[in-house]
């Protein structure tokens, strides 16, 4: 099974997210290293703030694009880890070891596997 651990950092979206303090970055590197050494880390990425991104709202088959920053945005995704785990509990245990800052939130979500889909959907994927 695969799980995505989604980091929702406790920083304002308009702020500059570029890391300045080496200490937390080093702690996070050690954590990533731990995941690698345990053979569970498949991929990870950190994201630029939403303020530099864009949002697309779909309606009537058309997309309306809004550039950041977004006034109402509170919970922005800061990055993710993709890990392999045997259970949700294992993924939660790994997430709990993250050296996250006060107020940070990590959401743990299972990745869909082909076998999770009903046969007709699998057939549609295979055409």
């Amino acid at each position: 099974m695969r799980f995505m651990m989604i980091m929702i950092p406790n920083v304002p979206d308009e702020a500059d997210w570029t890391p300045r303090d080496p200490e937390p970055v080093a702690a996070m590197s050690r954590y990533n290293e731990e995941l690698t050494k345990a053979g569970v880390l498949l991929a990870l990425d950190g994201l630029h703030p939403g303020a530099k991104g864009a949002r697309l709202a779909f309606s009537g088959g058309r997309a309306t694009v809004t550039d950041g920053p977004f006034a109402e945005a509170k919970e922005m995704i800061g990055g993710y880890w993709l890990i392999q785990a045997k259970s949700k509990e294992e993924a939660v245990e790994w997430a709990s070891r993250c050296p996250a800052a006060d107020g940070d939130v990590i959401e743990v979500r299972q990745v869909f596997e082909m076998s999770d889909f009903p046969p007709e959907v699998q057939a549609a994927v295979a055409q």
Partner: protein
Amino acid sequence: MQAGAATQEHRAIEAVWRIESATLIAGLARIVRDVGLAEELAQDALVVALERWPQSGVPDNPGAWLMTTAKHRAIDLLRRNSTLQRKHQELARELELHGGALEEPQLEGSIEEEVGDDLLCLMFMCCHPVLSAEARVALTLRVLGGLTTGEIARAFMVSETTVAQRIVRAKRTLTETRVPFELPHKQELSARLASVLEVVYLIFNEGYTASAGEQWLRADLCEEALRLGRILAELAAQESEVLGLVALMEIQASRLNARVGPEGEPVLLADQDRSRWDRLLVRRGLAALERAERLGGTLGPYALQAAIAACHARASSAENTDWMRMAALYEALAQIAPSPVVELNRAVAVASAFGPAAGLELLDALGEQPTLRSYHLLPSVRGDLLARLGRFEEAQAELARAAELTNNTQERRLLVARARAWAWEAGHPRRA
């Protein structure tokens, strides 16, 4: 509700166990110098955790908690149990020598290094050549994978008693032969490493292709083998064959979704929908192969197989595969790890690169080998090549033989279907 909460707690503790158990057992094995005893002590600590954590909550550092608990158990046991007298004396001596090895070491860097070495030692122990292959597999899954005997039994379709006995006997053998808990010496390193890699790949293959019966895939075993391989690749990053094996498994696992059709039937590599290959695993596999190649030297059997798998992974279709390179890689593989199966694959690659007649020529030389006489893939491949030469009646006969020889019901169904299609071709010859 209460029961549900208890189950939830247990699952959380099981998760901690899965993450911590191998390191825990490795650390204990270094102290007590016995894998079996170390595993029992770790299990005891788990029992204590299952009693206490539901009330107290999971401690901040569960690994250290388990280790301390297990060490206390070790001391109790050594004091009480006279049958462990010998161990006790050895341990007492050890403690005198090192001024209390039971104390936690202080330097973080050295702890990490030691933990890594202990884990690597444990891998070498569980995969020691004094043990049979099935004992090595069972012990590795139990001790390094943290799997229960029940899980191992289900994965290998044997009874739980059988697995439990295999593990008990394996532990006893290790104790009796007094295999030292240390990294192998230089002169035996490559043989010992080969034994570890063999076990990891056996686990992977058990998941990748069921050897008998209906079940085609057991993705859990593949994931477990991959996890073990990746751990090993971190511990022995300078060993090209370790990286080669990881690369091979990542690339093979990338095809898991594509190699089974809607009816659960196997789909041959050439017929697979490549858009269903897992690009993430392909990328990881290619990266591991690159790391192996960067180490220099000639590639070993796993790295060569990974290079072959990479050839498939890079090709947009079966026709666009670099078959020349493939034939060369198989020839290299045949030189360092000659086997009828490699020769068979080489014949396929040669047929694709230089035409079916060239492949058939290699196969005909092979057909005489007694080891291949009962191997269903030989007539299956022969049938394919004959069909490509338009010799459909002979092709059909070969497939019938292949269908007779295979144990896998899914595979048999596929062979029979192909034979039927060729029977039709034989009756409706196309104009050249």
